[in-house]
């Protein structure tokens, strides 16, 4: 059974002459319990695919399937109970005047849970924050701690799918390691399915079993983690990405 399936997904913005095709005929599947990556440059359409799944883009065509359910124009509460998203910038995605407690209990209330007090503490424990963080405001937290709160918020409805949009690109490498380790553990504990966007191939190779490489809205190549590690890529753009993952190579420019 495939958990997420995209068939011929097209997303566009604007009409007529102003029309921009952000995603063109994207087709891929993410099996249940798997972790799948989307890599590409800014503007390649990788985040747009996540936003399309969440119902955050106005125009799209093609087919998106979650579990057995084909998605229509509207998303209902049951969808958001199953699929949740963690955004890139924890400095922007948390309300500055809501405490951690407010952020988490609001989501829990919306999804109709009753034992909110116990669940808030359990969520904080899940993401490695003690109960002392419960009544703090975002400005009293470091970047890594904020991203932990954002992850706790996404976990609150007990989803089975997490969409991760560059979850560590705003963080220092040592903090990135902590957050990636947390995501690895959570996936094992809760049997989650991940669809993860990143511009960093090393991060994708660490977190995912397979990835799609995107350029100008199109998927140009699909790679398994073994192929990534062996640097086996067909498309010149993917090869360039793999090479730059190991630093600056003065000869890379001519080939790009």
């Amino acid at each position, binding site marked *: 059974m495939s958990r997420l399936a995209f068939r011929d997904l097209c997303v566009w913005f604007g009409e007529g002459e102003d029309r921009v095709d952000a995603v063109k005929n994207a087709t891929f599947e993410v099996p249940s319990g798997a972790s799948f990556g989307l890599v590409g440059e800014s503007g390649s359409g990788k985040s747009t695919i996540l936003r399309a799944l969440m119902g955050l883009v106005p125009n799209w065509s093609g087919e998106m399937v979650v579990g057995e359910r084909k998605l229509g124009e509207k998303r209902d509460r049951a969808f958001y109970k199953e699929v949740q998203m963690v955004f890139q910038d924890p400095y922007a995605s948390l309300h500055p005047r809501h405490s951690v407690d407010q952020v988490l209990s609001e989501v829990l209330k919306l999804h109709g849970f009753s034992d909110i007090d116990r669940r808030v503490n359990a969520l904080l424990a899940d993401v490695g924050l003690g109960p002392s963080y419960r009544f703090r405001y975002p400005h009293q937290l470091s970047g890594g701690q904020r991203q932990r709160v954002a992850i706790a918020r996404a976990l609150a409805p007990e989803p089975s799918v997490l969409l991760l949009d560059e979850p560590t690109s705003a963080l220092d490498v040592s903090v990135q390691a902590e957050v990636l380790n947390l995501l690895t553990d959570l996936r094992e504990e809760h049997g989650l399915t991940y669809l993860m966007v990143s511009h960093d191939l090393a991060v994708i190779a660490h977190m995912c079993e397979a990835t799609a490489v995107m350029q100008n809205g199109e998927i140009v190549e699909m790679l398994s983690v073994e192929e990534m590690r062996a640097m086996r890529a067909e498309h010149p753009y993917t090869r*360039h990405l793999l090479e730059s993952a190991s630093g*600056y190579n003065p000869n890379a420019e001519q080939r790009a």
Partner: protein
Amino acid sequence: MSEKPLLDIEDLTVTFPTRQGDFQAVRGISFTLGRERLGIVGESGSGKSMTGRAILRLIRPPGRVEAGKLELEGTDLLKLSEREMQKIRGQRISMVMQDPKFSLNPVMRIGDQIMEIYRFHTGAGKRAAYEKAIEMLEAVSIRDPERVMRAYPHEMSGGMGQRIMIAMMMVTEPDILIADEPTSALDVSVQTQVLSIMDRLVRERGMGLIFISHDLNLVASFCDRVLIMYAGKIVEVCDADRLHEARHPYTRGLLGSLPRLDEPRHHLEVLKRDPAWLDAPSVSGRQ
């Protein structure tokens, strides 16, 4: 190094007064810069950007810059008047910042911005400035420099913007370029291009480059020498190509926390910060 260093810094501190007392962002570091690519790496808050700004005396009061020595080829930068400092900035030492979007004037044509800098520092005429600007844009691999000269910054992509910034900073042919995370806002394909341009300028013009970055792999492969900063101090100095043999537990921890394509592991190493690092004396980066 046998030749005299371009920049000689001893015991540099940057202090900001706060309600809880003075906060030292840079705590007594010493290093020299020759005609080389010197990398400064560290995490956010380690003082690496403040070091770059302090050299140009861009720390605004109430922030204070103090140093036993802050010399540009024998000239004491701390003794210069603000007006004399203006002549140093841009002409002798230039700086490229992280995001071109915030460093270019949005309501001024790119050509006018480049020409203004050149004319300010050299007193050259319009025609000469125009030709110089075109030459510099060509040097940073911009294909149609005439069109770019007439364009406004918002018409340019991030990579183009950063190349324009470099052209603008190089037009006065400075001795030192300070690049503060010059490629962090760029996509990888553009990043390689921008780096190879800077690399060429350093080699061909014998410039000194201070390359500030949080990206260890990039610094290891791009620079000649690396200073690793932690909490306002230099904890380790090493040759860039031997960064992976670094000894200090902080450097080792940073390297270990990076996911690697060639070494898969289930969990990444997590950096354990030792409070003793805070009080250990700064390592000298003087040569």
